[in-house]
């Protein structure tokens, strides 16, 4: 704990120093301009989740004075890609975007995507291109860990890690929700419903494993694709099994709010409804967010987030964000900021390069170096040999009916 505080203070110090440095010298940006690409879904409910991340990234670049080492950094709209199609993330679109990003010589690194199913098809492309990719939100463990099949994803260069993330994985997020249900909500009989996607099914598997190993029981489990309209029949069937809590594995766009509404309609208004960060996507005032769609039905809703809910300097960050964009940040604004910090830091350490191809490789190698201690807005962390963060914190949020927003409850550190 003490170490983290020291790290945080050091981190703020570094930021302040960096800011002064840019104010003092005019040498910044002498070697030319590079772009950081952003790849996030920006339609429907996922726009509600992505916009605060994009703002977080831009804020980080602005705080760095728009420079890193001898390079100027810009994020023009032409390198902000949208992987949504017809209102929800679409892996095929994500793959096309990644090909375009990899082919753009000005792009030094890419931040994104939001959804693990998109990352799964993007990493092979960015890995082959040797392009640094930092995700502020992906949590599926199969994206990085060899024991979950990650070597198939980074097949082109299995030993040259290019994909890193600043959030922890679903083998923590799933169990964290189970732990919360067992220990805080004190319920043992759980009904699980997932959206059959990479993220939703994966996190539900992790949830189930932990729950069953720790005295809970799964009364029933269903997998329902996102195109479903009518959930009444499955929730009627689920209600008959007498669950004390419902766990939803998925995101708002794949049915989070619809399932909650159907559960309430089926007579389970008082049964706590717990979801992963996929439903933690902004306040009730944000168009298309889970809370906006669910309305009053959300009174018993809880969400976990792989983002650190409570980090040193959180109040300052929130105030700064609010001053800049006039909206409150979400948990993933800070991780977007942290991803940008990783990229900027890597560019600084990479030094100069003869051409963009060489710079890309130098930045990648500098960023994923497991020996580097990052001091970021969300605290200090390192990347391991697979590109996963050493910070393994899951935050819990509950619905606050008066503010019509998620309220931070507590957080759990799996690294301890």
């Amino acid at each position: 704990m003490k170490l983290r505080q020291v790290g945080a203070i050091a981190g703020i110090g570094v930021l302040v120093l960096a800011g002064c440095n840019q104010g003092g010298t005019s040498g910044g940006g002498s070697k030319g301009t590079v772009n950081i690409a952003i790849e996030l879904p920006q339609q429907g409910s996922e726009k509600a989740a992505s916009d605060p991340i994009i703002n977080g990234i831009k804020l980080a670049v602005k705080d760095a004075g728009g420079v890193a080492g001898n390079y100027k950094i810009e994020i023009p709209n032409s390198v902000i890609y949208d992987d949504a199609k017809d209102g929800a993330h679409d892996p095929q679109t994500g793959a096309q975007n990644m090909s375009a990003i990899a082919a753009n010589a000005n792009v030094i690194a890419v931040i994104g995507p939001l959804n693990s199913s998109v990352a799964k098809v993007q990493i092979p492309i960015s890995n082959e291109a040797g392009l640094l990719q930092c995700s502020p939100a992906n949590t599926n463990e199969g994206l990085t860990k060899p024991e979950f099949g990650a070597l198939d994803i980074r097949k082109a260069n299995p030993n040259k890690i290019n994909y890193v993330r600043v959030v922890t994985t679903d083998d923590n997020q799933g169990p964290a929700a189970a732990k919360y249900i067992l220990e805080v909500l004190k319920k043992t009989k759980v009904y699980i419903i997932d959206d059959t996607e990479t993220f939703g099914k994966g996190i539900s598997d992790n949830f189930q494993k932990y729950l069953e190993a720790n005295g809970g029981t799964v009364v029933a489990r269903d997998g329902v694709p996102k195109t479903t309209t009518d959930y009444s029949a499955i929730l009627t069937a689920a209600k008959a099994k007498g669950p004390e809590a419902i766990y939803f594995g998925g995101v708002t766009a794949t049915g989070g709010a619809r399932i909650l509404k159907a559960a309430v309609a089926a007579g389970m208004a008082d049964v706590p409804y717990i979801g992963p960060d996929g439903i933690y996507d902004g306040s009730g005032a944000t168009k298309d967010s889970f809370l906006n769609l669910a309305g009053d039905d959300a009174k018993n809703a809880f969400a976990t987030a792989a983002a650190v809910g409570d980090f040193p300097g959180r109040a300052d960050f929130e105030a700064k964000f609010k001053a800049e964009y006039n909206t409150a940040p979400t948990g993933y604004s800070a991780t977007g900021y942290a991803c940008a910090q990783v990229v900027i830091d890597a560019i600084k350490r990479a030094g100069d390069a003869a051409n963009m191809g060489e710079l890309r490789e130098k930045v990648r190698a500098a960023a994923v170096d497991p020996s580097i201690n990052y001091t970021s807005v969300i605290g200090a962390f390192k990347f391991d040999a697979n590109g996963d963060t050493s910070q393994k914190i899951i935050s819990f949020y509950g619905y606050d009916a008066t503010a019509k927003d998620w309220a931070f409850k507590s957080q759990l550190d799996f690294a301890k």
Partner: protein
Amino acid sequence: MTSVARSASPASAPSLIRRFRLIGFSLIGIAVYFLILRLMLGNTGTATQQVANALTLGAIYALVALGYTMVYGIIELINFAHGDVFMVGSFVALWTVTSDPWFQAIGLHQTGTVTALPLLALYLLVMFAVSMTVVGLLNVTIERLAYRPLRHAPRVAPLITAIGVSLILQNVIQIIVGTGDRPSPKIIPQDAFPFLGAEIRFVNVFIVVTALILMYILTLFVGRTRLGRAMRATAQDQQAAQLMGVDLNQTIAITFLIGGALAGAAGVFQSQYFGFVRFDLGFNAGLKAFTAAVLGGIGNLTGAVLGGFLIAFVEVFAAANGQQRWSQAIVFVVLITVLVFRPAGLLGQQIGERA
């Protein structure tokens, strides 16, 4: 109910007997379905609840399927835009009660449940009136602009046009409201009453009863009125009907008007029952309703209703047994099986290709 493709005799004693037989068969069907569910689930309350779910879903499918089958019956066009017409209906129903500025201006703004019964009745009446009128007229407009100019073109031309219209409707709504779910206030109170061990919500009863009333009115219209007779005549033989003085354009327009109005009513159900609407709702609904129409025998009104309920029963049955992920596959297996043995659908009659 009568058939559009094949004329039925005007309402007379045999038809009355047929109608009672139909009601009898339906009740027996529901009872058998309930018993099977009861046996498989081992819980009367849950089985009752699932039957209520299936009937409600079936009522919605059936109303949409009627629009498919009527249009097919009269001009032999598979109107792929019909699912999206239904989707527009659900948005019109939503806009009638939510905070949209236009409707706020006329004082209809509503964001929650309406408990006062007279007021609730008024709201529902307005919702149905607005949604059915707007969507009915929309359907007529689509026919006038997109299908009528192609009436004598090769069959594939209006088919492709229908797919085009479907995409246009989806995209227009997408531009207006965006791509996410739009929450719809459920103005019907969510109260339930105990029935056979289950808690049946009033909204379920309301949907099924209203749908049956609409279907009955449709039967009366097609079977007993001049325009209905003109529709049946046109379905049998356009040229002969025209020679007998039937105004072809008017008759076809009225068919589209009625089909659209039924889709509009189904749109109201969608917004009230599921509590959300979405721009791409029409695709799935259209697919289900089209399947229902084919299953029952396309062109046959009774068949469409039967098909709609059957598909809902199959889907709910799959979900009730924890096999929701297979529900689509099971629906189509049922469809294919039926078509193998009865290529014209359950109630369809084999009609030779027309000259």
